[in-house]
């Protein structure tokens, strides 16, 4: 069985979970991005430092066009004095540079905990951080000058590192510049034109324009603290998420309990409804707006049920009352016959038979009513001659009418036909004629007329009545209703007109009663729009 509460809990939990996960993921990735940006900024800063370090590298390490200075031990003869002093100065300068470089690299590695390595294009390492010892970093590939790339990598001891790879020229040794006046008229420092050769024809480099290498460098820094921070953050987010989920479940339950309370109350009230409390109604006061339509519909349903129950109660009561008298007659006659038997048994048997027929008539009428009201009987339409049917149905009542000196005007056109179920139409006619012959006073008039030219009437039965209350017209078609409350007439049970109307409805016809200007009661059997539309093509009434 579907439960609104369960469904709401599931949907709210799923929704809230998605929101919590999205929020957690958002926080996590934001923080991670911030941390990475911080690390990358630090790497970029280190990169600048390392680039500066390259400035103090010997120039011959940066360009193949510059030869390394000759070592003194390799020379066969001593150079001239001024050359020797230049070499000494250069050697001193190189020693000083080497020491400075070593100090800078040591400081860089120690202070920043970073590792770096710089390669020449041929893959020769020209510089690496001292803390790498014998190990080497993996040389990056597919680098573009000036475009650093950042990535994660594992350090020498398996530590997680953040790395930046870049290709650069050592600072101050960019594009080769022509000494003297530029024949192309370029400004000093402007990039060379594409067609300007950097070497002389024949492979000789231009005078005083050594070609410096693009160096590939990789700088790494320890990403462990960042990963630790992220792990802590993930743990925190997960913990908070679990607490939030538990809190959400509790809150949802409480909210639903509170929100659905009026519905529970309404359900409890509905559960208390039984046949004896159908006169009660649901109050709209203090009811949530969403439940107001339900309350209104329930009240309408209660009203219909109450009416239906009242009708059924009245019907049961009427039926019981109708059957009480014949049963009382049977019982009393039987008791008397048993206690004081006499010779005249045939009269008693005749009366017993009459009572049985009376009760049988009531039961059959009720069963017929039930069948037609519930649509359990199939309608079998055929072309019916209304005139013939009318005359045939009137015959059994003609004697009774003659006995009461009733004047009967039977005027049904010979050509009048109708496509309908003759069995049901016979029932309608018979009950109307029976009613007319029974309740027309002695010397009265009964008019039975067929279809009119200007209206939809199929049959009209009117008769004089002695004393009918106009209000009674509204009750004529009710079950067991009779003008005479005494029900002293054993031949009628008060079901005939009700049965006639039910049959007319089954045939999509309309049976109405009214009083005319002469205070005669008139029953009109009319066609309805539904019946007309179903038979319009056949032109039923001739």
């Amino acid at each position, binding site marked *: 069985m579907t439960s609104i509460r369960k469904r709401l809990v599931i949907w709210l939990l799923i929704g809230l979970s998605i929101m919590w996960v999205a929020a957690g993921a958002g926080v996590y990735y934001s923080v991670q991005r911030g941390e990475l940006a911080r690390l990358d900024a630090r790497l970029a800063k280190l990169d600048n430092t390392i680039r500066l370090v390259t400035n103090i590298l010997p120039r011959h390490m940066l360009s193949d066009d510059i030869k390394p200075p000759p070592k003194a031990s390799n020379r066969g003869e001593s150079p001239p004095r001024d050359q020797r002093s230049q070499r000494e100065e250069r050697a001193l300068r190189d020693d000083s540079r080497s020491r400075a470089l070593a100090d800078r690299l040591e400081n860089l590695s120690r202070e920043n905990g970073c590792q770096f390595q710089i390669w020449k294009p041929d893959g020769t390492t020209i510089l690496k951080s001292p803390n790498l010892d014998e190990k080497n970093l993996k040389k990056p590939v597919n680098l573009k000058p000036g475009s650093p790339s950042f990535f994660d990598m594992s350090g020498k001891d398996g530590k997680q590192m953040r790395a930046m790879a870049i290709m650069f020229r050592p600072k101050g040794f960019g594009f080769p510049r022509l000494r003297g006046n530029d024949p192309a008229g370029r400004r000093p420092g402007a990039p060379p034109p594409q067609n300007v050769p950097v070497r002389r024809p024949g492979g000789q480099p231009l005078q005083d324009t050594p070609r410096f290498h693009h160096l590939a460098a990789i700088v790494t820094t320890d990403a462990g603290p960042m990963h630790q921070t992220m792990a802590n953050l993930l743990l925190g987010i997960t913990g908070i998420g679990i607490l939030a989920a538990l809190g959400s479940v509790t809150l949802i339950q409480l909210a639903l309990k509170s929100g659905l309370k009026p519905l529970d109350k309404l359900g409890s009230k509905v559960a208390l409804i039984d046949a004896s409390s159908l006169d009660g109604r649901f109050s709209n006061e203090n009811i949530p707006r969403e439940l107001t339509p339900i309350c209104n519909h329930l009240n309408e349903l209660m009203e219909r049920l109450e009416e239906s129950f009242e009708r059924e109660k009245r019907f049961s009561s009427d039926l*019981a*009352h109708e059957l*009480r008298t014949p049963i009382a007659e049977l019982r009393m006659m039987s*008791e*008397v016959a048993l206690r004081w038997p006499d010779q005249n048994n045939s009269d008693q048997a005749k009366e017993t038979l*009459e009572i049985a027929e009376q009760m049988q008539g009531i039961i059959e009428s009720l069963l017929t009513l039930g069948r037609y009201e519930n649509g359990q009987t199939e309608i079998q339409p055929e072309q019916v001659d209304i005139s013939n049917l009318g005359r045939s149905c009137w015959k059994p009542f003609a004697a009774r009418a003659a006995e009461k000196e009733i004047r009967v005007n039977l005027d049904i056109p010979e050509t009048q036909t109708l496509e309908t179920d003759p069995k049901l139409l016979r029932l309608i006619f018979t009950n109307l004629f029976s009613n007319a012959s029974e309740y027309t006073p002695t010397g009265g008039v009964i008019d039975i007329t067929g279809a009119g030219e200007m209206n939809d009437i199929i049959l009209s039965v009117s008769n004089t009545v002695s004393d009918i209350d106009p209000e009674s017209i509204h009750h004529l078609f009710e079950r067991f209703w009779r003008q005479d409350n005494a*029900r*002293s007439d054993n031949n009628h049970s008060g079901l005939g007109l009700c049965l006639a109307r039910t049959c007319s409805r089954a045939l999509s016809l309309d049976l109405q009663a009214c009083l005319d200007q002469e205070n005669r009661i008139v029953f009109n059997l009319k066609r309805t729009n539904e019946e007309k539309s179903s038979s319009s093509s056949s032109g039923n009434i001739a």
Partner: protein
Amino acid sequence: MRILLVEDSSRLRDAVAKGLRESGYAVDATGDGNDGLWMAQENSYDVLLLDIMLPGMDGLTILEKIRDGGKQTPVLFLTAKDTIADRVKGLRRGADDYLIKPFALEELLARIDALCRRSYQQSSPKVSIDDLEIDTSAKTASRGGRRLDLTAREYALLEYLMMRQGAVVSRTEIEEHIYDELVSPMSNVVDSAICNLRRKIATSESSSPLIHTRRGQGYVLEVKKK
């Protein structure tokens, strides 16, 4: 005892009337409310049996008119209206009892008997004088322990006299309470019945006479002191 039965169902009316007559009651019966009212007002009945839904005039109106006329005759409603509201309405209008159709004849007789006893201030079904005793429930009479063989009419006469023992009962009263409207008031049916009853209750030569004639007045049932 004389009973008026107003019931519109002819078959039920005839059967009840027959049962009551066979049980010793004098019964007048009609199916019309107006006729019933007229008969109740004109005659002296011991019990009225009224249906509620009647042609002409309903049973409740008949009861109201009877009570308005000062008559306190016990009324029993015989009706198919079975709701509590209907019963309460009937009893509040002055009915003494209410019986719903269908009913057993035995129950009807018992209720009529109870109403008759009540109207003569008798609480026990057994009424006696000297050694003569009647049982109004069993409709039997005995003297000195010996059962009397009485017809229904004779028993009804004895019961009426027993109910009014010590009082002078006129012929008219006997006619009104023992005989129905079919009996001619000019006949000497009362004298004949008294004569027969005297003979039947004199079970032996030593039995003291209990029914005495008061010239010009009627009859009295009493034990005469010697």
